[in-house]
């Protein structure tokens, strides 16, 4: 009996776990719950890119790819459970798509020697590789976003923000509060008045906040929202007739989901991005041939070309290239998570590389190093065209104000290093 049970257990494990020789890129997705509308396209894009690599190229460096998915429902506890349950399967890198989960996983991935990528989210000071050895947040972080938004406003206002009022409408959580310090410093530097307007989770009711904005008449509103908070905020801004071209969302407040419900009123709303929009890229031709038309799309297969689907593709492309770099560094195709970390630390994304991958002008160029895990802090501005129902890139990729952002990163990461007795990883 014991033998039978043992055999069954082994057979079960073999059936459930990925084939050990494959490269495993776990997907901590959220296809259910209040943030599913954002989680689904990301998970689909992430999976479809790897499906394409398997179908077209036979994987990466001759190794096939597995993308085991675990549903987190954007819940931090579930996210940690997913990490724990998947890490035994040889996951090379985790991308939690949640700042809450990221914070919980930082000590775990470091102890387990597994890298984590948190592009445009998570703990901003993780950019400092000297302190955060296993966490990466290239190509841009929350503070870069805040700074690039202010740079854009500076351009709009002819370089002078003195006497202007800028309000931050934010999700009242660790994520939403991230840009406050940066914007406070930028307000001192540029002389604008900065006002914080928090919105409690989930943000279904924001009348008070928008009445405040109607009363205070800020010149610009920046938003750090997610999920339903975005849709309600855009609708409320339309309701109070706030000029939409002076309303700027972070990249988590800039998808089709956030503006479609508001209809024509949302026309002109702006949002930051760290990758390009649309589907006019050679990569999409390959996706059509090898994934969409072959019936191998993830999910319902109806998210291609949306902003967050593209973000999923971009996230997958970054780690796929990091895996390729790791294979080159270590001279093996079947890399370990530790070797993957080395690949991420040596990753260089150039325009030539992106063009070869079928994604010309899709994102900023950057180079990762032991000290710099966050890239160069470039982001661009997009704007919603309600009639065409599409986002358009309206600026080049612009670098954040490193004079403001870098000292904040150094300060925050130094505090973390001191609390956790972390030595300089690059020393």
């Amino acid at each position, binding site marked *: 009996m014991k033998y039978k049970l043992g055999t069954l257990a082994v057979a079960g494990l073999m059936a459930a776990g990925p084939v050990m020789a494959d490269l495993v890129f776990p997907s901590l997705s959220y296809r259910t719950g*209040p943030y599913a509308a954002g989680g689904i396209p990301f998970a689909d894009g992430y999976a479809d890119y790897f499906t394409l690599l398997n179908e077209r190229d036979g994987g990466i460096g001759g190794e096939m790819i597995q993308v085991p998915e675990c549903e987190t429902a954007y819940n931090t506890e579930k996210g940690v459970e997913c990490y724990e349950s998947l890490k035994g399967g040889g996951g090379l890198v985790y991308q939690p798509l949640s700042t809450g989960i990221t914070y919980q996983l930082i000590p775990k991935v470091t102890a387990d020697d597994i890298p984590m990528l948190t592009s445009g989210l998570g703990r901003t000071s993780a950019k400092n590789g000297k302190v955060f050895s296993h966490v990466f947040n290239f190509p841009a972080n929350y503070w870069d976003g805040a700074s690039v938004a202010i740079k854009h406003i500076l351009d709009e206002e002819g370089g002078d923000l003195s006497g202007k009022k800028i309000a931050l409408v934010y999700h009242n959580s660790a994520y939403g509060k991230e840009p406050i310090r940066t914007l406070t410093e930028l307000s001192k530097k540029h002389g604008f008045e900065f006002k914080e307007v928090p919105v409690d989770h989930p943000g279904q009711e924001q009348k008070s906040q928008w*009445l405040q904005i109607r*009363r205070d008449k800020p010149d610009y509103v920046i938003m750090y929202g997610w999920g339903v908070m975005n849709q309600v905020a855009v609708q409320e801004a339309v*309701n109070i*007739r706030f000029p939409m071209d002076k309303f700027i969302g972070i990249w988590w407040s800039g998808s089709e989901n956030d503006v*479609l419900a508001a209809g024509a009123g949302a026309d002109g709303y702006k949002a930051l991005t760290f990758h390009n929009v649309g589907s006019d890229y050679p990569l999409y031709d390959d996706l059509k041939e090898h994934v969409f038309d072959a019936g191998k799309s993830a999910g319902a297969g109806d998210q291609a070309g949306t902003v967050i689907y593209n973000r999923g593709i971009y996230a997958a492309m970054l780690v796929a290239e990091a895996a390729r770099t790791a294979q080159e560094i270590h001279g093996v195709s079947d890399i370990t998570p530790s070797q993957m970390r080395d690949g991420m630390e040596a990753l260089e994304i150039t325009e030539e590389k992106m063009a070869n991958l079928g994604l010309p002008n899709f994102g900023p160029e950057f180079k990762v190093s032991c000290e710099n895990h966050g890239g160069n802090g470039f982001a661009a501005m997009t704007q919603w065209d309600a009639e065409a129902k599409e986002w358009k890139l309206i600026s080049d990729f612009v670098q954040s104000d490193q004079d403001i952002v870098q000292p904040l990163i150094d300060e925050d990461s130094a505090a973390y290093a001191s609390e956790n007795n972390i030595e300089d990883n690059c020393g």
Partner: protein
Amino acid sequence: MNEQLAFTIEVFANGLMAGVLYALVALGFVLIYKASGIFNYAQGVMALFAAMTLVGIQNGQVPFAHLINAIFGTEVHHFGWSVHSFAAILLTVVVMIALAWAVQQFVFKHLVGQEPIILFMATIGLAYFLEGVADLMWGSELKALNVCASEGNCLPQGMNVWLEGTTYEALGYGFFIDNLDIVASIVAAILVIGLVIFAQYTKQGRAMRAVADDHQAALSVGVSLNFIWVLVWSLAGFVALVAGIMWGAKSGVQFSLSLIALKALPVLMLGGFTSIPGAIVGGLIIGVGEKLFEFLIGAPYLGGATENWFAYMLALLFLVFRPQGLFGEKIIERV
């Protein structure tokens, strides 16, 4: 007009409007609790399910399309037609009645006589089951909700320009009221009047009240408990549909819609679990209270975002002094 006073009046008026929306959700809880003593944790999810069903029917979406395609290898997603809003609402009501029947037939019929905590647990199970079914049936993506009487004649959004202009001319300050909130208030008023008329003047309504007063006595005079509970769950389903339409029109229909139940809890604590007028008055007090607190104290002195906790604190205060709520029936147990 003094500007601060004008802002305060504006916040007060918008608080009333928000309160009506909270009351719409609370009404569903009250209906079921009053008739069966069940605290229906699934009321928020019922609003989500109703709104998703409405949009799905309107858009001619094939229910369970993903499942059907996965099993049969087909590629069906839409029937290729769209349904007029009124017809879609009627069909959704039919679906909600079917749901009410199923809930009674397969769940609560088997739990008659169980402790209230068991019934409450059953509604928790029902909430998660229903959320899963909604996902499987209509998909998790965000859907825009447009309820239209005719082409271009849909639920209004945005500021009421007439009110703004009139108050500006009369008082020197143009007040902001959202058109959708005005419609929601009218709908809520019609709904409450309709429910009261139904409860007072129809045979089924009187039977419903008899069951609410005393199950045993109602049974002894030939009232079918089974029928009445299906009726009550159907009414709660209809109220959930109305709440789902009003909230869904604001933010699109998505899974966070189920969280509107959180807004109804303080309303119930304050207004009582057994009173329809209590749900309305409770909603208005919570709406006005949280908005005024945020405006006068929360935002200027406490950093803002006080509405969620203040609503519960206000309800808690009422609970301490009047545990049955403002309009709830006083609980007297003789020993």
